[in-house]
């Protein structure tokens, strides 16, 4: 027969091992088949099938890497702009230059800016850098961060958009409550899963899909509350839900358990009493009642009929109101002394708090029936296995196989705090937080050490974990923002780690450049803006405004794969070596991000698989060249030696692979030393593998203890409590923040300040999005459809909109390429399948093809991902409408954590 060539391995001349990290549900491991010097095919790296939790497989996106590499529309050489004018209607008129010319130009600009001072007249860094998706870029940036680290202050907070790409508020509250920057289910053991819009089967990566599929096979039940029946909802009980009403349902679920069920028998009393702040006494002003001398929070001892500090050994009352002497500590050190004051336990306060949130109340708000809410509450309790235990690696743990997951639009923007609180508190009622089968975290990013969640759980005040909030007291509050998104000034929860800049209100720089606020440093554009793997002109809300603002930036350096809508405004395009063309050693396994909890941890290598078809340069080489040309070579080398850029310190207890000063290292030298240091460190000196070994073998692993999946291991060992359900610290921080802002005359953040509350209350969140029309002098009632986004596995995160084979296969999945409408709603509007329709918000209107579905609420419409390209080759021909063009960029849509959501009210009508 003819075709043996194609499907056998006989003609493959070599297989080059690589990792794929096109989404934060990785890395996964693959082989590139190389024939006649051409990378022809991708294969899973089945060799690691016993280590990789999904048998060594890779998802649909990885297979697109072949076309990505050989895309004929790539930027083939460095380019400089010759048209001094910028803007949508200004062709850049690119001119090819040599790498030397391009790098010299960038270096000269950097030196000129440095000579002026690294901060501008408003106090903002003159150099800004935006990387697409904080979790992904580091797997591809090589040593570039080491160069940036030599610079001094850099503004990493000019955002490329949140919404569909980010869990934002979950990152902040998740890390605060249970070191869960990313929150997951312990899928291998979960039996009952409640999801609010979590689209795991599209965005959970290979491990997510694999694990949930195995879980379904053994009987996992999933209930999916969401406005449209997603890919993930296909295997669940679908409960159509009105957008932004998730918190109402969660409050009602808590109500059912606390007011309609026998919670004393069905909840995990031991957990609530011993591992939460439920028994802490709350004084009449809403703060914990404290011992006047030690300031320790008090609990009620029913045996001795008196209040005692939380850290004494006794069995405290979980409910009740008591007359207690003590003090409350309010904002700015205010002390309220009580000889005797009525104090309720935090749990009692919560019981009272949710009394009004009945299922019938939630039904009217959310569309989920009261009967369904009661059914889910009952099934949740029935599956919680309260009292049950399980043995893991010889240690006995509580076994609570129920979990709750949230989607991105659910956790972001108004209603995010309330939803996250509802989810986490509901979990604690049955003790299913951070234990086998339950809701767990995988990642820490705001605390240290970043690679060890359990070690990051350090004892802090009041019996909780330590997590410094950004200061809100008079002496230490940062009145003058140090970067444009002002995360230290406005968002106490964002903390101040290297990740915090990306977690502040990253859209505020764009908004403030357009509409400067009162009593605030004058918004300025950065003198130099580096961009990598990001396209905010497409991915940011009100993308037209963002495009207009960036066209005013004086000098933009774009690491560029193809021309796109953002680098259309650039001054220099630097074609960097892409996924299969460059080197990087990256940490793999352990616990991190989405569904990444492994029984192994190690390092994996990316490497050039075949000669590149364009004149590109490895980002590590670019970093070294820029360091050399800007006179910071030694600082750069020192940063590399400390692990800057690579994430791997080159000197350890028993090894020293540090690079010598003064000599520009090659990329291979840097990664060779990183390989050696990483393996020495990870194996505790047992092995040392160099770059050549990794090029041949792909990855190195050592075992990772399964016990380390569960924060319970550390919490129990350290005697710590979860800071739930009562949010005294957050409430106090919010009040102090209000004081500070008002002292500056700032009132434009007042609405956000109302979000800070010890027990969150329901507000009419959907109405916030409805009423935004009034800001544009339009009538809210004219916009009767909720436009939402949803993930596409084929396109999420991968910077791969220009890969035609992905469009080809994505067409088999509903929603590509148009706007999904409820079929009956469409019929009434005389809209048929495939018709062109206008989607109009108060901001703008865009066109799209109608895709009619029954699995969409009648008052909703859905567009997948983010498209609307007008420059990017291939993508610009997809005719895909983009929610971001319709979604206003407005302070009224910004919550207290600085996040917004991919939600916009529109009207839809036939073209």
């Amino acid at each position: 027969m003819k075709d043996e060539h194609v499907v056998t391995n006989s003609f493959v001349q070599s297989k080059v091992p690589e990792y794929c990290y096109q989404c934060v549900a990785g890395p996964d491991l693959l082989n590139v088949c190389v024939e006649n010097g051409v990378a022809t095919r991708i294969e899973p790296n089945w060799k690691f099938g016993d280590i990789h939790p999904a048998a060594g497989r890779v998802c649909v996106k990885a297979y697109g890497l072949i076309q990505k590499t050989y895309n004929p529309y790539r930027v083939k050489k460095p380019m400089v702009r010759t048209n001094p004018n910028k803007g949508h209607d200004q062709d850049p008129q690119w001119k090819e230059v040599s790498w030397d010319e391009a790098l010299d130009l960038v270096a000269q600009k950097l030196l000129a800016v440095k000579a002026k001072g690294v901060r501008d007249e408003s106090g903002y860094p003159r150099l800004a850098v935006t990387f697409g998706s904080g979790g992904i870029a580091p797997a591809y940036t090589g040593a570039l961060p080491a160069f940036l680290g030599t610079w001094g202050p850099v503004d990493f907070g000019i955002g490329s958009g949140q919404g569909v790409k980010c869990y934002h508020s979950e990152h902040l509250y998740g890390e605060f409550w249970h070191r869960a920057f990313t929150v997951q289910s312990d899928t291998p053991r979960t039996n009952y899963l409640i999801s609010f819009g979590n689209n795991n089967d599209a965005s959970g990566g290979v491990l997510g899909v694999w694990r949930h599929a195995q879980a379904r096979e053994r009987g996992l039940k999933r209930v999916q509350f969401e406005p449209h029946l997603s890919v993930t909802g296909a295997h669940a009980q679908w409960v159509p839900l009105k957008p932004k009403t998730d918190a109402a349902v969660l409050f009602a679920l808590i109500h059912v358990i606390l007011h309609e069920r026998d919670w004393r028998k069905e909840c995990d009393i031991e957990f609530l009493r011993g591992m939460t702040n439920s028994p802490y006494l709350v004084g009449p002003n809403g703060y914990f009642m404290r011992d006047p001398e030690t300031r320790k929070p008090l609990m009620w001892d029913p045996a001795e009929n008196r209040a005692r500090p939380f850290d004494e050994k006794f069995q405290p009352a979980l409910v009740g109101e008591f007359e207690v002497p003590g003090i409350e500590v309010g904002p700015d050190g205010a002390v309220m002394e009580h000889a005797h004051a009525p104090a309720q336990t935090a749990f009692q306060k919560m019981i009272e708090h949710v009394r009004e949130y009945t299922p019938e109340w939630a039904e009217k708000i959310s569309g989920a029936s009261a009967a369904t809410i009661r059914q889910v509450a009952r099934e949740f309790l029935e599956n919680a296995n309260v009292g049950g235990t399980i043995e893991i690696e010889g240690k006995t743990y509580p076994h609570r196989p129920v979990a709750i997951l949230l989607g991105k639009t659910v956790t972001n923007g108004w209603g995010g705090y309330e939803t996250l609180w509802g989810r986490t508190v509901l979990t604690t009622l049955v003790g299913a937080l951070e234990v086998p089968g339950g809701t767990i975290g995988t990642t820490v990013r705001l605390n240290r050490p970043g690679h060890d969640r359990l070690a990051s759980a350090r004892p802090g005040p009041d019996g909780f974990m330590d997590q410094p909030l950004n200061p809100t007291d008079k002496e230490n509050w940062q009145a003058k923002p140090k970067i444009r998104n002002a995360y230290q000034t406005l968002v106490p929860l964002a903390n101040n780690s290297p990740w915090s800049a990306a977690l502040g209100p990253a859209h505020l720089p764009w908004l403030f450049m357009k509409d400067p606020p009162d009593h605030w440093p004058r918004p300025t554009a950065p003198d130099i803006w580096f961009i990598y793997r990001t396209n905010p002109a497409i991915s940011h809300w009100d993308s037209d405004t963002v495009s207009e603002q960036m066209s005013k930036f004086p000098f933009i350096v774009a690491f560029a794969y193809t021309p796109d809508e953002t680098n259309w405004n650039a001054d220099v395009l630097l074609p960097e070596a892409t996924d299969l063309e460059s080197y990087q050693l990256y940490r793999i396994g352990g616990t991190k991000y989405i569904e990444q909890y492994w029984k192994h941890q190690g390092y994996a290598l990316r490497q050039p698989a075949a000669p590149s078809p364009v004149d590109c340069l490895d980002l590590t080489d670019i970093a070294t060249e820029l360091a050399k040309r800007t006179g910071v070579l030694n600082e750069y080398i020192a940063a590399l030696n400390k692990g800057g850029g690579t994430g791997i310190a080159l000197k350890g207890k028993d090894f020293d692979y540090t690079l010598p000063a003064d000599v520009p290292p090659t990329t291979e030298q840097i990664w060779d030393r990183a390989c050696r240091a990483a393996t020495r460190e990870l194996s505790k000196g047992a092995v040392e593998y160099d770059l050549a070994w990794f090029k041949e073998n792909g990855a190195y692993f050592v075992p990772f203890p399964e016990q380390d999946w569960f924060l319970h291991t550390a919490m129990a060992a350290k005697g710590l409590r979860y800071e739930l359900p009562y949010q005294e610290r957050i409430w106090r921080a919010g009040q102090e923040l209000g004081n500070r802002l008002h002292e500056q005359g700032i009132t434009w953040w007042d609405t956000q300040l109302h979000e800070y509350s010890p027990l969150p209350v329901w507000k009419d969140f959907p109405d916030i999005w409805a009423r935004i029309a009034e800001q544009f002098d339009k009538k809210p009632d004219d916009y009767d459809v909720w436009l939402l986004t949803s993930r596409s596995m084929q396109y999420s995160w991968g910077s791969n909109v220009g890969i035609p084979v992905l469009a080809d296969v994505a067409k088999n999945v509903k929603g590509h390429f148009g706007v999904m409408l409820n079929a009956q709603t469409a019929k009434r509007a005389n809209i048929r399948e495939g018709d062109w329709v206008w989607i109009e918000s108060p901001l703008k209107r865009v066109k799209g093809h109608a895709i009619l579905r029954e699995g969409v609420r009648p008052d909703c419409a859905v567009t997948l991902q983010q498209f609307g390209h007008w420059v990017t080759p291939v993508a610009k021909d997809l005719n895909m409408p983009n929610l971001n063009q319709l979604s206003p960029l407005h302070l009224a849509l910004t919550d207290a954590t600085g996040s917004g959501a991919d939600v916009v009210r529109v009207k839809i009508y036939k073209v």
Partner: protein
Amino acid sequence: MSRWGMVVDLRKCVGCQTCTIACKQTNNTPPRVFWRWVADCETGTYPDVQRSFVPMGCQHCTNPPCLEVCPTTATYKRADGIVDIDYDLCIGCGYCIVACPYLARNIVFETAPYYEAGLIPPEQVLAHPDRVGVATKCNFCFPRVQEGLARGLVPGVAPDATPMCVGACISNAMHFGDLDNPESNISRYIRENQTVRLSEELGTESAIYYIVQ
């Protein structure tokens, strides 16, 4: 002699199209030609709606309708049950495309590139001029299976001896093996689960079994 077949667990499939793209790359099929793809099906009316994903492709029928209508005997059935096409004999009449109830066959009359700018190097390296103007479809990656067998590997167990769509599947929904071996992986799946075959009423006796619950 083995008789090759597949079991697809519809409880697990999420319609991600990883099998689709792995097949396309392995077999270098041109744009819009799918030897393997996953249908995204919606049934019911709002709010009682079900969504399911069904991997599709040649069913390698025991009684293939495509074979009956082929005027040149280009379509033939191998002893191991795989239905295949001899491109030298195929005249591209398209009868088989109409006859196949599973929409599994394709025909193109020119080699189209994915990028409008033209064929890229991997497309050129893997080019198949013999597939222009003839019917094409899934062949269960039989050269891959044969090569694996020659190396002593067990198809359906060893990825290198298994159709690429199965080895690539990220939900472990697809399985390949010997239908005639009662101890094979897929025989066990069929024995232990409720399965259906597509359009059984047509009497095609497909070699792909779907686990539905």
